């Protein structure tokens, strides 16, 4: 099946003994989800390697270790639903169905990248695929989501807007303003906080007076739930509840995916604020291996099928890299072409 089509399998083959969150997902959906998790992991590793080899400049924010949060949250969305993403947004973009080749071309600053090389890693958008853009400003997408929700309502559509943000963004005023307006107007928005424990170097436990980001939902009279962000079926189950509620007119929800980034904040990070032991603990909770182990235990896929899924994803990213490397650079004479629409 096409990795970019999260279609529902007509004949679910849930096995006995599965927990409800897993049993709710048919095998076709799980195959697509696992494929996308591998695509994200490979994409990030390829981006990092390309940077190390001097093939690209700038910086990047890698989401290795957070794949279940991105893919699980987006799993219940339709292609015509919207997402708004963050500076650590490659995973959201792939999860929503973007073409990794066009993403890598953008990362390489090429004319045929998603943003014609004008945006780069922090500003990848896939408008046709419903991704209204990553954002270089912490919390930048939160107020925009309010307007998308208003727009959906005013155009009498049954779409949903899902906005991603990190734990650090929840201390921005934009978080408060956006959740308040979404709630008073009952807008079809799902707020997904990817709590990876650190806002750059600041431990969220030192930056927030309540134990969970999800606790903050009570201030806006909306459901708030904290889930294991490395557990794809758990994330998907929480997201489905929130997406269904939003689509049916029940208003917004806040989901907190507790997860961890394996890499530093960006390329300047020397990991002075955390220990190797802490990183190792989280690496043992690799969201991809956790899912594969569970799927194999319940007979959804055998070892050969799992290996084939990973290999196919690796092949796709390898082809994407070749595409990016061979793509043309933008023409400097076209520098100001898209400053204004005409």
């Amino acid at each position, binding site marked *: 099946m096409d990795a970019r089509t999260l279609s529902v399998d007509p004949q679910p083959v849930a096995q006995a003994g599965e927990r409800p969150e897993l049993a709710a997902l048919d095998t076709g959906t799980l195959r697509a989800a696992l494929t996308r998790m591998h695509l994200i992991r490979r994409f990030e590793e390829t981006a990092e390697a390309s940077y190390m080899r001097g093939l690209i400049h700038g910086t990047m924010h890698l989401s290795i270790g957070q794949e279940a949060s991105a893919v699980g949250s987006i799993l219940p969305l339709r292609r015509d639903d919207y997402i708004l993403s963050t500076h650590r947004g490659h995973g959201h973009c792939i999860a929503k169905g973007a073409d990794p080749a066009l993403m890598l071309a953008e990362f390489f600053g090429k004319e045929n990248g998603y*943003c014609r090389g*004008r945006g780069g890693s922090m500003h990848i958008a896939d*408008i046709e695929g419903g991704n209204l853009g990553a954002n270089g400003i912490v919390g930048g997408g*939160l107020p925009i989501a309010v307007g998308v929700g208003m727009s959906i309502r005013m*155009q009498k559509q049954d779409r949903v807007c899902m906005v991603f943000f990190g734990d650090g963004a929840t201390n921005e005023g934009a978080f408060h303003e956006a959740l*308040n307006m979404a709630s008073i107007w009952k807008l079809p928005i799902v707020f997904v906080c990817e709590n990876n424990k650190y806002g750059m170097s600041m431990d969220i436990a030192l930056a927030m007076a309540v134990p969970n980001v999800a606790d903050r939902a009570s201030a806006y009279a909306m459901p708030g739930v904290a889930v294991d962000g490395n557990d794809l079926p758990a994330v998907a189950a929480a997201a489905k509840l929130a997406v269904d509620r939003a689509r049916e007119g029940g208003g917004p929800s806040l989901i907190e995916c507790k997860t961890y980034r394996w890499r530093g904040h960006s390329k300047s990070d020397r990991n002075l604020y955390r220990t190797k032991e802490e990183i190792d603990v989280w690496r043992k909770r690799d969201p991809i291996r956790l899912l594969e182990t569970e799927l194999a235990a319940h007979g959804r896929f055998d070892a050969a099928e799992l290996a084939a899924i990973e290999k196919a994803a690796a092949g796709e990213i390898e082809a994407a890299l070749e595409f990016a490397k061979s793509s043309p650079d933008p023409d400097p004479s076209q520098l100001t072409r898209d400053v204004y*629409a005409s």
Partner: protein
Amino acid sequence: MPAELAAPSVADTKELSYAEAIREGLAQAMEADPRVFLFGEDVGVYGGAFGVSGDLLKRFGPERVIDTPISELGLAGAAVGAALTGMRPVLEIQFSDFVTLAMEQIVNQAAKIRFMFGGKASVPMVVRLPGGSGTGAAGQHSQSLEAWFAHVPGLKVVQPSTPHDAKGLLLAAIDDPNPVLIFEHKLLYKTKGTVPSAPYRVPIGKAVVRREGRDVTIVAASIMTLRALAAAERLAQEGIDAEVIDLRSLRPIDFATIAGSVRKTGRLVVVYEGVKTMGIGAEIAAQVAEDDDVFRALKAPIVRLGGADSPIPYNPVLEKATVPQESDIFTAARKLAGGGER
């Protein structure tokens, strides 16, 4: 005389205040296009802090004239999100000073989204900002911040001086596929003028010669246009023939009209309410200095009249002394044209 300023037949026009003209423009835009809506603090039941929206809530209902919480950042972001997904939002920032709370969304998001996304999205939003001094509201309710936004590629900035232009520039802004900021002047809301009843557009980026003259060019915008015209009448009594240009748009700026006038008069006074230092007068003077023909046409140094390097004070005498008045323009232009004291 440009076509849009030609006097239509009396039957097709009426005398409206600047505020009424804006209201009529808003109503006509909402009647013509279901995507247009007005939102902001106290724009509904209250009718707007300066009475601009008036009865629009009664006429269009609470889904299109939306009272909002006091959340300028969130509101600016909501305008971005709605514009990005098919709506034509018009946001009123109650006092232009409060736009400082919304800078992130206007400068980082609205202005840059089209460019950063490689021209694949547009943000057709309008922000209305009542600005200027003269109401005794002191330092945080009296500023003229338009030059800040004229510094940002991706934004358009206009400053109507008449009821005619207030309506025509609003309708042009709503049609425009880019973010447009309209700096209205609080002292102008009650000024009256002839306004065509039918919808019409005043082109963004076109200045207008309000008074033709041979001896000195006075470039102004917003309320300074009225003061410049009054000063020009007094100058005429002394035999000095001043040409008065109303900029109407700051970004894009119509340098061709300024250049044509300065080539003729050889003398230039630029008058604006914003702080003089690093203001729009500096840009206009620099463009004149950079243009070989226009620079060589100068018979005297350029004069800038702008706001003092001071916050707007409360005391009415001090407040008037902070920004250019008619007598300041008269004195400066007379001196420049060689009249009075040398």
